[in-house]
Each structure stands twice: as structure tokens, then as C-alpha cells.
């Protein structure tokens, strides 16, 4: 028993290593951007404003984390519906759970967000793993459905949230991130994590060694959906209302964060630390450029350039250390 557990742990660590090794450039970028930000705007980085700061970054970080399990599961695994799912959770929680049903307490809101996230995650998993539609197409279908539903329910920004909820973008902004982090940490302690990484790296080998690849992939989308539901709470706390236009923008940002953080889009390589650092890079870049009050166009240009530069330099770093292609 202990021998098996130790072996499993060894395997898990071996699998996890590339995730940290692959984030060299992103990690360096993080340090540089953090220093630049602190130099430009020290006030914002003092302990008393940490709550607000984390609240600003939380939707993007959790969106990146929600995208990670599906990507890790391999064979084109990708969930492009993460952004619209966050927007949908935002719309339902504000206009239906809180405004219409009057369930403004934390329990009802958290349960609703997690149930909605899990339901659509399971739907994506069903399409991608069981019906076997290519993930980008399956989740694109879900993307369109969710974005359309959100705009139907909430045609324009509306609604308010109770004060405990606003607190999730202030002093308590770390709670949603902590919940996602703990859930994922718990998962990495189970055999599921090893099975997921094995499936992502080489699904045929995983299948022939008896792993239930279909179930593993299905669960990856389900887990991502739950995280997206929680990410929707961070988003709602930050904007303080229901807005049909914001959620969608997180899809491409989240995928960029994940790639920036060294998570391989081919699956099986990378992890939560990388995805978090990737998301922080993008957040700090945005916040530094916003400080200079430059136009969003410069932000967009810089962000595109850094994304390409980051993935390219990570790849060059790897190939110079390894075999010559």
C-alpha cells in the first residue's frame, strides 16, 4: 500500500516537473512585470490593498485555471466555452437567484454557481468524450448557446449584488481562488491526477493499460466547468452587476494565459502554477500599461507580441536543452 502510494507520488512528481520547468520565460516576465508595477504604483501593492488587487486579477486567474483540465486531457482537449459560462453564471446569479428568487445568501449563490458550472462542464464532457465531437467544435457550440442565452436573459447590464458578495472582490477576494486551488490540490493527491496526465500525454498507451480514458476526459471538462462557475462568482463580485458582454472576453485571455504559463496545448504537460503565472503576466501587463494611460490598442499590440514571444522563447529554451530538431 505505502509502496504503491510512494510510487504514485513519484510518478505524479515526475509528471508535474515539466510544468514548472516550462514556465521559465513566464516566470521571468512575472518578476519583471511585478517590479515594474510596484515601482510605478507602490500604493496599489501595499498589504491593505491586496484584497482589491487580488479581486481584480481573480476572474482571469480562475478562468485560466478552469481552462487547464480540459487542455491537460489531450487529443485537442480545449474548452472555449469557459468565458461565456462565466458570463452565464453571472447573469443567472444576479438576475434570477438574487433578484427574482430573493436567495441572496452565500449558500444559495455558491451552490447555484457550482451547479451551473458543473452542468455545462458535464455537457461539454459528454460531447467531447462520449459523443466524441472534436473538443474545439463541441465547446464552440456550447459557447454560442451560452452567449446567446446570456444576452437573451440580460440584454444590457443590470442588477445589483448584496454587500457580502461585493466583499468577494475586496477583503475576501482570495476565497474563490482558494476554493479552486484547494479542490485542485485535493485532486492532485488522488490517482485521478496521474491518470489525467497519462491520458493527456499518450492516450493510446493509457487506454491499453486499462485506464477509462472516456471517463477521465469527461471528468476533466466537469472539473473545468465547476471552476468556471466559481470564476463566474469572482467576475460578478468584481463588476457588481449582470453584464452580458464581459464573460466572452475571458475565453481567449484564459487560453493565452495557459499557453503562456507553459501548459502544452497538446495535453499532458503543465499545471496550475504555470497557468496562474501566465494569467498574472497578462494581468500585470494590463495593469502596467493602464497606469501609463495608453490606449487599449497599445495594450492589445503589446499583449499579442508578448504572447508570441513567450511561447517562442519557451520552445527555444526547451529545444536548446534537449534534442536538436
Amino acid at each position, binding site marked *: 500500500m505505502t509502496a504503491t502510494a510512494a510510487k504514485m507520488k513519484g510518478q505524479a512528481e515526475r509528471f508535474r516537473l515539466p510544468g514548472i520547468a516550462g514556465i521559465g520565460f513566464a516566470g521571468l516576465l512575472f518578476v519583471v512585470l511585478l517590479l515594474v508595477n510596484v515601482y510605478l504604483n507602490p500604493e496599489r501593492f501595499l498589504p491593505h490593498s491586496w484584497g482589491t488587487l487580488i479581486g481584480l486579477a481573480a476572474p482571469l486567474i480562475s478562468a485560466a485555471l478552469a481552462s487547464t483540465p480540459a487542455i491537460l486531457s489531450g487529443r485537442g482537449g480545449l474548452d472555449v466555452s469557459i468565458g461565456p459560462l462565466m458570463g452565464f453564471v453571472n447573469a443567472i446569479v444576479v438576475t434570477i437567484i438574487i433578484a427574482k428568487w430573493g436567495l441572496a445568501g452565500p449558500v444559495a449563490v455558491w451552490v447555484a454557481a457550482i451547479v451551473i458550472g458543473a452542468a455545462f462542464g458535464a455537457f461539454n464532457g459528454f460531447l467531447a468524450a462520449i459523443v466524441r465531437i*472534436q473538443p474545439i*467544435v463541441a465547446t*464552440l457550440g456550447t459557447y454560442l448557446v451560452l452567449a446567446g442565452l446570456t444576452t437573451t436573459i440580460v440584454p444590457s447590464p443590470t442588477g445589483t449584488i448584496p454587500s457580502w458578495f461585493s466583499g468577494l472582490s475586496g477583503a475576501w477576494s482570495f476565497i474563490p481562488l482558494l476554493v479552486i486551488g484547494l479542490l485542485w490540490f485535493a485532486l492532485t493527491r488522488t490517482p485521478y491526477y496521474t491518470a489525467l496526465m497519462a491520458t493527456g500525454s499518450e492516450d493510446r498507451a493509457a487506454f491499453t493499460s486499462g485506464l477509462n480514458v472516456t471517463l477521465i476526459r469527461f471528468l476533466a471538462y466537469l472539473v473545468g466547468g465547476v471552476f468556471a462557475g466559481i470564476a463566474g462568482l469572482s467576475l460578478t463580485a468584481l463588476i457588481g452587476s449582470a453584464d452580458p458582454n464581459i464573460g466572452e472576453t475571458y475565453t481567449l485571455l484564459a487560453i493565452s494565459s495557459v*499557453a503562456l504559463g507553459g501548459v502544452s496545448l*497538446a495535453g499532458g504537460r503543465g499545471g496550475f502554477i504555470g497557468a496562474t503565472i501566465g494569467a498574472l503576466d497578462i494581468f500585470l501587463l494590463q495593469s502596467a500599461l493602464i497606469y501609463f494611460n495608453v*490606449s487599449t490598442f497599445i495594450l492589445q499590440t503589446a499583449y*499579442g507580441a508578448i504572447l508570441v514571444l513567450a511561447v517562442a522563447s519557451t520552445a527555444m529554451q526547451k529545444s536548446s536543452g534537449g534534442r536538436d530538431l
Partner: protein
Amino acid sequence: MGSMIAILRRQPILGAVLIAVLLYFFGLASIDGFGSTFTLRSMLILAALLGIASVGQTLVIILGGIDLSIPFIVGFANVVAAQLYGNGMNFALVCLIVAVLALAIGAFNGALSARLGLHPLIVTLGVGTFVQGAVLLWTAGFPSGSAPQYISNFVSIGGSIGPLPFPGVVPAFLVMTLAVAFFLARTPFGRRLYALGSNPPAARYALIDPVWMWAATFALSALFAAIAGVLLLGFTGSAYADVGKPYLFQTIAAVVVGGTALVGGRGSYLGTFVGAIVLTEINTLLIGLGFQPSAVQAALGAVIILLVSLYGREAHLREQI
């Protein structure tokens, strides 16, 4: 029913054609004026624009990649062409500049992805974002200018060509479809595309240079996106950097509804041609049935899932070992 689905799975284009025909009759039965020349003409123009933007996506997907820079290149060509032509430049020169820039951007996408083994999804997304940001910076977010009259006539809903009740873009789209199909099936480049897409290591032994092929294919993709961008300038009349936005996912949807799998090495442009028509039909139908734009979007998503689950399913892992 079971055997029919089996046939569709072997011949996905047949499935798409069948659905296009069924949708057409459904439209005739449920919406007044669906069969009118006007509706038919506008559907054909919209399908042609989507089809042209999807040429590159088809080629890139056959190669085993994906191109998310198409909407950005469409917007780039749209704005740059309008801006330069508005500044009084000769339109032929404008087109040349736009084409050369688009080819260069596309070649960069492909070469970088292939040389460093990067996922093209991220490379094209990053490069596309950069290009759009640069264009917006250049025009300060307020692009001006328009297309010359003959481009507008070429794609206008009211246009006609000779005795035909269609503007020039419709017959041009048909000719282009045949040309692309011929290019894929009968030229060395086309055959190399399939070879490299289905088995990259084996293609190397056939002396196919992957970096060159990727650069050339992504360059072609950007070129077709740029053509769509210039035509859209004629269609809408004014420049708009986000004009290509719907094409991000619609080009992928057209390819997939047309029966081309995203795994590489398989598929055809004829499928994408039918896929573009099916998507345009569904859109027109839903709007004709009185749905709001947001409901149209939701229904389109559901229909894509439904169609692809009918004939676009991947084989089970146990059949791939």
C-alpha cells in the same frame, strides 16, 4: 436510419448536401419569400464571403493546424485597404500592398509554428491580436475610407452580372471552389498538404519540407482572409476593424459542418463550400422565423453540435491503436 448514418459517416459531404437541401425546403415551407430571388441572392453572397474566408481554414486544417488569425486578417485588410484607398492611392497598388502584407503575416504564422513546434492556435491568436492592435493604433481606432465602386458592385445585394441575377462574387465563388478543389486534388502542393497532414514523420521521408509547407499554407490562408476583408469593405461600404469577428468560429464551423475532421490529412474544400451554405441557410432561416440575434446565436450553436454529432464524430480510441 442506422445504415443511413453509417453512409453519412463515410461520405460526410453527402450529409452536408442533404442537410442543405432539407433546410432549403424547410425554409420554403415555413417562411414566405424564402424562395424569392432576393433571399436566394443575399444567401449566396453571404455564403460566398464566408466560403472565401474559409478557404484558408480548410487548407490549414488539412495540414493538421488551425488558424485563429483569420478574423484579424479580415479586419486588417478591410481597414488598410479603405485607409490607403481613401488617401488617394491606386486601388490595384492598394490590393498588392495588402496581399503582400497578408502573405508575410501568414508565412510568419506558419513558419514559426512549424519551426519551433508551437501550437498554431496560440501563434495565430498572438499574431492576430498584434496585427489588429497595430492597425487600430495606426488609424487611432477610427478608420476611414471606402472601396471603389466596382468592388461594391461585385458584392452588392442589388448587383447583377450580365443576364444573371447575381453580383459577380457568386459565379466567382463557384469558379474559385472548383479551382481550390482542383488545386487540392491534382497539384503536387495539394498532395503534399494531405501527406504532411496525415503523417508528418512519413512526409519527411517523401522530402516534404514541413516548415516551407506550413509557411506557404498559412500564407495562403491569410491571403484568402485578406480577399474576404476587401470584399467585405465593398459589401458594408465602410471600414471596421472588427468586421471579421464572426469569422473566428464560423470558418471553423463551416469546415467541420462540411465533414472535414480537425485531425489533419483528411477533408476537402467542396465540403467547406457546402458547410458555408448550410451555415448561411440556418442563419437566414432563424432570422426569418423571427428569432432575436441572441437567440439565433444560441440556436446556431445547438445546430452545429447536432450536425457534427450526426456525421462528424471521431473514432473510438480502441479503433486508433
